[in-house]
């Protein structure tokens, strides 16, 4: 065994650890592969390191994944683009392993390298690799091959192109559904590189074969690529070749296929002109909105606003709106929730009159829904409708809905509504807020769930920001400070939290005059938890108030706490004192 000079020691260790028994150390070394390569130099990286890595293919999946990723950016370390092909060997092996994420990463890296390679190397090295994988014994190799064709194809000479197209056609009809799935999901990438004549003939043939596959999962992925494929075609070809398939799929036996159509339909509309949308896609979409399967209706309902945006308002009112009315009374709460999350967006599309006449009743009925998510989704998008018809029309129904949500027995629901309060305040204005909602905000401060109390404190901060310190002085501060006399220490703790958040918003003057005395007072509390929270709050207020106040009020208070019998109180007090010192030193 040789000895290595001291400065090289870390690299030497790094290299040795490529073969360590501990997986963490091997991973660490693989992640620093570029360092090792630089230490070895380009020549030895090509002649030794890469072959070494190629043999490393039975390592743990985590290590292989890291290796696949590193090799993708390894071109500079093997001597640049003209030597990039040496990287293909280890990656080819990784393309055949069983673990999907390793294979995916290896394919990704191969694509990265392939897109840099010289044309000649692509033809002589990359394309044969693709062909080898496509003819691989294990299905894993063939799955990987599908993702590489779009790199190999463009630079290939004419005969090779023909061959590649024919190989891809075979992959689309492979025995293994996994391979067909991969072929289906990569088809649009490959199609993007194929000349338009072949696109219309060969690729569309493959597409049609895949859309008639026995396996639902293959057909699903064929739908997924529809929109991307459609955009490659001329609108009239798209209407002739893709549209019938989609219309067919929208009536597929399998709900999962229909679900996928519902998700993709909007994208496909972009590829088609307005005429086929009106004659074919709109009826298909309406069918999906009325599908038997709730999952399909959920997907379709979620796209209702986007779909209306590409239609004329008349068509939307005539065809979509009746469905929306039905969906708002759907038996599945999830459908109603999906609808509620987007339906407000229809207001700007339909305009003021139609909104008041048609949409408003729907909003109101959703606001009274028995399922809290539905109501919450409506409230979260209030701003969209406010722009069109103003909030007054809604406010009558809004208030009961908010109050009910605010008192919901599930704390997550209460939490969600608190998070919308700043938005509501902004939309409803100060007047409405003061009358109706101010009380609720205070009530939450004394909720029995910590997360709610915490969110309530944050909410006060947002409100103070929204309406300004003067308003807060009148409407928040007095009520909040009253909590100081609460008998429950957790409530007093919430007060401290609120003060630490409000301080920076209210500014130095109000903090000193109103907030700080309360905090200092709380330092005499009998509960240690309150006392160390006082220490924490004081620390956070250092930056808010003047240096003089720090020295006059905060420091003495902290000094006193630092002599407290409780160890935690002393700890946080000392921390506070230290940060005072830091601030003093820096200023």
């Amino acid at each position: 065994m040789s000895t290595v000079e001291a400065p090289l020691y870390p690299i030497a260790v790094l290299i040795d650890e490529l073969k360590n028994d501990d997986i963490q150390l091997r991973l660490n070394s693989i992640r620093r592969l570029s360092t090792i390569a630089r230490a070895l130099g380009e020549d030895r990286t090509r002649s030794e390191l890469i072959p070494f890595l190629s043999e490393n293919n039975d390592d743990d999946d985590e290590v292989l994944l890291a290796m696949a990723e590193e090799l993708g950016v390894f071109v500079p370390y093997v001597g640049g683009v003209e030597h990039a092909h040496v990287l293909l060997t280890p990656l080819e092996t990784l393309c055949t392993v069983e673990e999907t994420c390793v294979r995916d990463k290896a394919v990704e890296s191969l694509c990265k390298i392939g897109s840099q390679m010289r044309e000649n190397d692509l033809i002589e090295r990359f394309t044969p690799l693709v062909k080898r994988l496509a003819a691989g014994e294990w299905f894993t190799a063939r799955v990987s091959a599908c993702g590489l064709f779009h790199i190999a194809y463009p630079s290939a000479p004419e005969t090779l192109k023909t061959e590649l197209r024919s190989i891809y056609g075979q992959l689309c009809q492979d025995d293994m559904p996994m391979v067909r799935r991969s072929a289906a999901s990569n088809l649009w990438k490959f199609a993007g590189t194929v000349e338009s004549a072949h696109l219309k003939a060969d690729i569309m043939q493959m597409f049609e074969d895949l859309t008639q596959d026995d396996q639902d999962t293959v057909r699903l992925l064929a739908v997924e690529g529809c929109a991307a494929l459609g955009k490659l075609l001329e609108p009239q070809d798209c209407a002739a070749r893709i549209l019938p398939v989609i219309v067919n799929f929208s009536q597929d036996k399998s709900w999962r296929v229909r679900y996928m159509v519902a998700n993709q339909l909007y994208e496909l509309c972009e590829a088609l002109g307005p005429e086929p949308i009106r004659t074919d896609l709109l009826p298909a979409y309406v069918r999906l909105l009325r599908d038997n399967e709730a999952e399909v209706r959920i997907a379709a309902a979620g796209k209702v606003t986007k779909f209306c945006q590409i239609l004329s308002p008349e068509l939307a009112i005539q065809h979509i709106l009746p469905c929306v009315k039905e969906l708002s009374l759907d038996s599945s709460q999830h459908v109603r929730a999906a609808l509620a999350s987007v339906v407000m967006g229809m207001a700007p599309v339909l305009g003021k009159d139609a909104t008041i006449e048609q949409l408003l009743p729907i909003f109101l009925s959703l606001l009274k829904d028995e399922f809290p998510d539905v109501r919450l989704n409506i409230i979260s998008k209030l701003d969209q409708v406010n722009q069109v018809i103003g909030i007054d029309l809604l406010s009558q129904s809004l208030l009961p809905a908010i109050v009910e949500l605010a008192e919901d027995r599930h704390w997550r629901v209460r939490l969600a509504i608190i998070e919308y309060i700043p938005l509501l305040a902004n939309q409803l204005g100060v007047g409405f807020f003061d009358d109706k909602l101010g009380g609720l905000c205070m009530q939450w401060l004394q909720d029995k769930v910590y997360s709610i109390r915490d969110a309530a404190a944050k909410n006060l901060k947002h409100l103070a920001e929204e309406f300004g310190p003067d308003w807060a002085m009148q409407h928040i501060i007095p009520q909040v400070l009253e909590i100081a006399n609460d008998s429950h220490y957790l409530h007093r703790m919430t007060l401290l939290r609120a003060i630490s958040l409000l301080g920076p918003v209210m500014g130095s003057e109000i903090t000193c005059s109103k907030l700080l005395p309360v905090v200092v007072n709380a330092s005499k509390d009998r509960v240690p938890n309150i006392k160390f929270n006082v220490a924490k709050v004081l620390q956070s207020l250092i930056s808010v108030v003047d240096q003089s106040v720090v020295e006059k009020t905060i420091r003495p208070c902290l000094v006193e706490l630092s002599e407290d019998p409780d160890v935690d109180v002393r700890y946080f007090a000392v921390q506070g004192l230290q940060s005072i010192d830091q601030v003093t030193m820096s200023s």
Partner: protein
Amino acid sequence: MNNGGAEAAVAPVGGPQPLEWKFSQVFGERTAGEEIQDVDIISAIEFNRTGDHLATGDRGGRVVLFERTDTLDHVGQRRDLEKMDYPINRHPLFRYKTEFQSHEPEFDYLKSLEIEEKINKIRWCQSAYGALSLLSTNDKTIKFWKVQEKQVKKVCDLNVDSTKAMGNGPIVGSSISTSSKQYMANGGCTSNDFSLPNGGLPSLRLPMVTTLETKLMARCRRIYSHAHDYHINSISNNSDGETFISADDLRINLWNLEISNQSFNIVDVKPANMEDLTEVITSAEFHPIHCNMLAYSSSKGSIRLVDMRQSALCDIHIKLFEEQEAPGSRSFFTDIIASISDIKFAKDGRHILSRDYLTLKLWDINMDSGPVATFQVHEYLRPKLCDLYENDSIFDKFECCLSGDGLRVATGSYSNLFRVFGCSEGSKEATTLEANKNPMRRQGLTASRPSRSLGSPSGVVRRGKGADNSAVDANGNTFDFTTKLLHLAWHPTENSIACAASNSLYMYYA
């Protein structure tokens, strides 16, 4: 030449001749007077798709793999034999390959429940790259295993002296000196600051690796847990190669093999009020060809066929198979013995085989009025149902299997017996075999030797009539309810059966 070849030569044209079963192999044979450990009792058997591998699971949570040897080495020789048109007497032979601990006993602290390690089911997955992969499950947790040959390597020619490295290097050691810790912390980071010469550093070298041997390693790749409130009774792979289902008493969940933290509930038979519960799921299996179809059986003796395309929640079946009971024949035991313990699709996907306590039934999925065939497995037990109920034997869960060609079916019984029936049109084949080295021993006693059974209906039915309440059958054989043959599997391509008699794995061929 030996018997097998000779018999094949004289097989008559027309209906298939009853098979003459012969003992092939036994693994873990019980020696006389040997006490059986509970953990060694086999609880699952499964051939893989090609029939080249066999897996067993036991109550101790272990999975044992066997590999076929007769096709491994003699491929060339076999081809030569075939060329010579020479009758080959070749039957599947297996050898022990490896074993691993799949499940450990656990405790669910939230429910104060012990979860035993017993393997309930094993299912093979499509494998790639020379690795074997399978799913195994106990009552609660499904695991995905990959068994692969790993090279045991010896690493030498390290840059850092190995003796020194023990003290200095950041190798997993008990005592790492502070100085080396610094190196560890800097491990690769500092090296970025080095100005490395263009040609590289010649003194550094890569470790040399020499392969010593290869070793089989089982790795658990994924654990699918916390999705079942009740005990898992079945798992089944989908033909799409991407998903599988797991079924417990009340629910069936759908999983993606790659995703272990989420599953979709597709069947839920749990009533709103548990007091209304009358029926539980006993077994579930995917259709072998159509990825959207699955069948599940119930404790009330019905089989439901479900189409996953129809709806996300498959509470509505597309077909229901159940036999109308004969009026007036109801007794206290009717419901109990109707409970289906296992269902299997035939390879063609057209037929479903089901096993209830006393019979095997074969169903055609195109005919839901009743089974196309019913085979009495041990009808002579019918008068003894009361005793069987008393000692809980009536709740035993017997599995069933079909031959690869779909012409025969098999299932187990008590006293380590198992039965093979011909199910092709007009077949009267009904063989009783005993899981020991002399499987046909019973034949002489029960007068159901294949040669004679051709003319007469199954001898067993006759025997049942004469049986009295004691555990002694008409022929004076005592029946042992403790030695039950619950698990067996038919080789996918050949006439070969593997069955479990407590801790021993017996293999037969015909």
